């Protein structure tokens, strides 16, 4: 059986509060916090991008696995913000973490589910026996246009999952994917900010796919919501994942551990993977965990996972998600945020 042998996450320490963004645009912060359930979000520094976030998360995953990185046979990064349009992020990450050149690399894109996409393929290659170890990463420095609702959520961070066959921290019991052609959110070649269909991104997009995928895997695995200790759903805002979870019969205590969005924001491809990392930081052996991602365009991937006895022993080798969310932070003004996110036009 294949499963997760190491995992790691990274969240930048720059933050901006929802009320600071609301103030900039003359919006009522109480309305934003009540409507979207968002308090603050992470912001990448000048020297942080999808590649640096991926490297930090991948190193943590290797530390927890305690393996020689040269044994990693495949590395996939899912992101909406690969620094290059043409030239992979994966090659830089592979060299930085000390692996290659005998390695298969690819960058994935499927809006916010590119991270679970990378995990899905990495798992499959390990299960097939083609490689001993494979890494799937979801990381983003998410884009949201100024004065768009997305600006309150689009944040930076990511998580890496290393799959193998021995010394598993987490068993993968089942996988499921659900995909349709639904244009709810998109960014065309050469455009800087994504566009979206407003309320169309809700019922016919997020909820349709997340609910169908979660129901599909529960049926396939012959499990019900109450069998799980934890569940995490893609977090485009604070409200959607709680609403989806409750519709499926999950209770608040099953959802709150992975629900990192109020403080972190939506790290797009890194969103549900980082929520999963936060769950693995505290899960007990034998706990069942459900993760369902969502990517616009649109589709969802689901995994049913089970923590092993090894998880508590190994996880102390790298920082937890909460240690980064609650740890040293630097709060930015909107002006500093605009500078860091290169929203200001300056001469070369």
């Amino acid at each position, binding site marked *: 059986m294949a499963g997760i042998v190491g995992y790691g996450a990274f969240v930048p320490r720059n933050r901006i509060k929802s009320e600071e963004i609301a103030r900039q645009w003359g919006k*009522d912060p109480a*309305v934003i916090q009540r409507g979207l359930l968002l308090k603050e979000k992470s912001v990448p520094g000048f020297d942080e991008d999808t590649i640096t976030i991926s490297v930090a998360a991948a190193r943590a995953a290797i530390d927890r696995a305690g393996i020689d990185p040269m044994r990693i046979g495949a590395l996939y990064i899912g992101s909406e913000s690969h620094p290059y349009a043409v030239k992979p992020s994966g090659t830089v990450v592979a060299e930085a973490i000390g692996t290659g050149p005998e390695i298969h690399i690819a960058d994935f894109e499927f809006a916010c589910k590119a991270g679970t996409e990378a995990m899905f393929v990495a798992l499959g290659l390990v299960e097939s026996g083609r490689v001993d170890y494979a890494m799937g990463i979801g990381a983003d420095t998410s884009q949201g246009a100024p004065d768009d609702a997305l600006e309150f959520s689009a944040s930076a961070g990511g998580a890496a999952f290393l799959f193998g066959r021995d010394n598993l921290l987490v068993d993968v019991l089942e996988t499921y994917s659900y995909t349709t052609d639904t244009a709810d959110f998109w960014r065309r070649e050469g455009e800087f900010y994504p566009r979206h*269909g*407003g*309320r*169309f991104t809700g*019922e*016919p997009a997020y909820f349709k796919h997340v609910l169908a995928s979660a129901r599909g895997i529960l049926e396939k695995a012959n499990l019900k919501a109450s069998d799980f200790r934890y569940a995490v759903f893609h977090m485009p805002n604070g409200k959607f994942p709680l609403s989806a979870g409750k519709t499926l019969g999950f209770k608040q205590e099953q959802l709150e551990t992975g629900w990192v969005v109020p403080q972190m924001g939506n790290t797009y491809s890194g969103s549900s993977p980082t929520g999963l990392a936060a769950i693995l930081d505290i899960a007990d052996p034998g706990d069942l965990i459900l993760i369902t991602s969502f990517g616009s365009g649109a589709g969802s991937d689901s995994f049913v996972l089970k923590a092993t006895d090894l998880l508590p022993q190994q996880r102390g080798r790298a920082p937890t998600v909460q240690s980064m969310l609650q740890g040293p932070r630097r709060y930015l003004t909107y002006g500093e945020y605009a500078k860091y996110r290169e929203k200001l036009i300056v001469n070369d």
Partner: protein
Amino acid sequence: MREVAIVGAGMTRFGELWKYSLRDLFVEAARGALESAGADRLDSIYVGNMSGGQFVGQEHLGPLCADHLGMAGVAAARVESACASGGVALRLAYLDVASGASDLVLAAGVEKMNDGADVTAVLATASDQENEVYHGITFPGLYAMIARAHMAAFGTTEEDLAWVSVKNHRHGAKNPNAQFRREVTVEEVMASSPVAAPLRLLHCSPVTDGAAAVLLCPLSEAKKYTDRPVKIRGSGFATSTLTLADRENPAVLDAVQLAAERAYKAAGVGPKDIQVAEVHDCFSIAEICCIEALGFADRGRGGQAARSGMTALGGKIPVNTSGGLKSKGHPVGTTGVAQAIEIFEQLRGDAGERQANGARIGLTQNMGGSGASSVVHIYERGF
């Protein structure tokens, strides 16, 4: 002129109907109307629609609707008077039958608003582009100015506005076709997001997809289609200045008043004879101004009607038993026809939990823009 009856009705559920296109919505409502009357032919179709061209890129709705109903060949045209399009379609259908030109006519309304268009910008085309839109005004802004004028002239309060929403949501909670089938409290309304002061989110009707259709024939032939026809006793139609600022008094909807006078005269009744009414509450202030213009409340006193219970179910004259535009939803070109369906059901005793007891005479009032066009119909139980 011949006497005219409504003999069948059909409508879709109202809401964000992502899976339904404009033509799907029309066909569902039109088929419902035809099947309820056991009719399999039509002489003509009038389709109320404000802006198919801008919402979904589709004009020329007459042939589209006739064709998709399986009736290509039938005379059919789209009717436009902004948010009064449905009411005007009903009026044209009424005149078509009354004149003797047609014997079986469908009056329909359809609007597909949730399809990616900038709805506020599309709706703004119903105001004056040169005198209003150019300066940045939108409909919430125009109705906010009407509300301010009403408050200044008559002492109407924000709480008075809130009570209109509370009452209409209470009614809409009982309507299976309503977009928002839930009640709201005065506190919730007063704490909802500001849209254009003094109007808040819960003072505003929503963006809605939906269609409605009614079947009209001469009263003398109505029994062929139903044993419980509803007679249209009168129709009144009027316009005012397109630009709100050009009106003598922005707190008075003079087109509504004029349309009502004409409808009352044609029907030979007055406001005191009306037992149930559907009025155009696109914003809560609109219901207050409309019930004054219709004569249900004295000028300046409309603000107290919802709070006192006068216009609630069980009150002296229940207004917007369907939930109104606020709770039932407001697919702009459909609204006028959907209002007629509510009164059709009320006068037939088919309104279930929201039935106004013993109603024999009812009224609908539909308007376009900031009240620049308005159409009023008066109905009577025909059995």
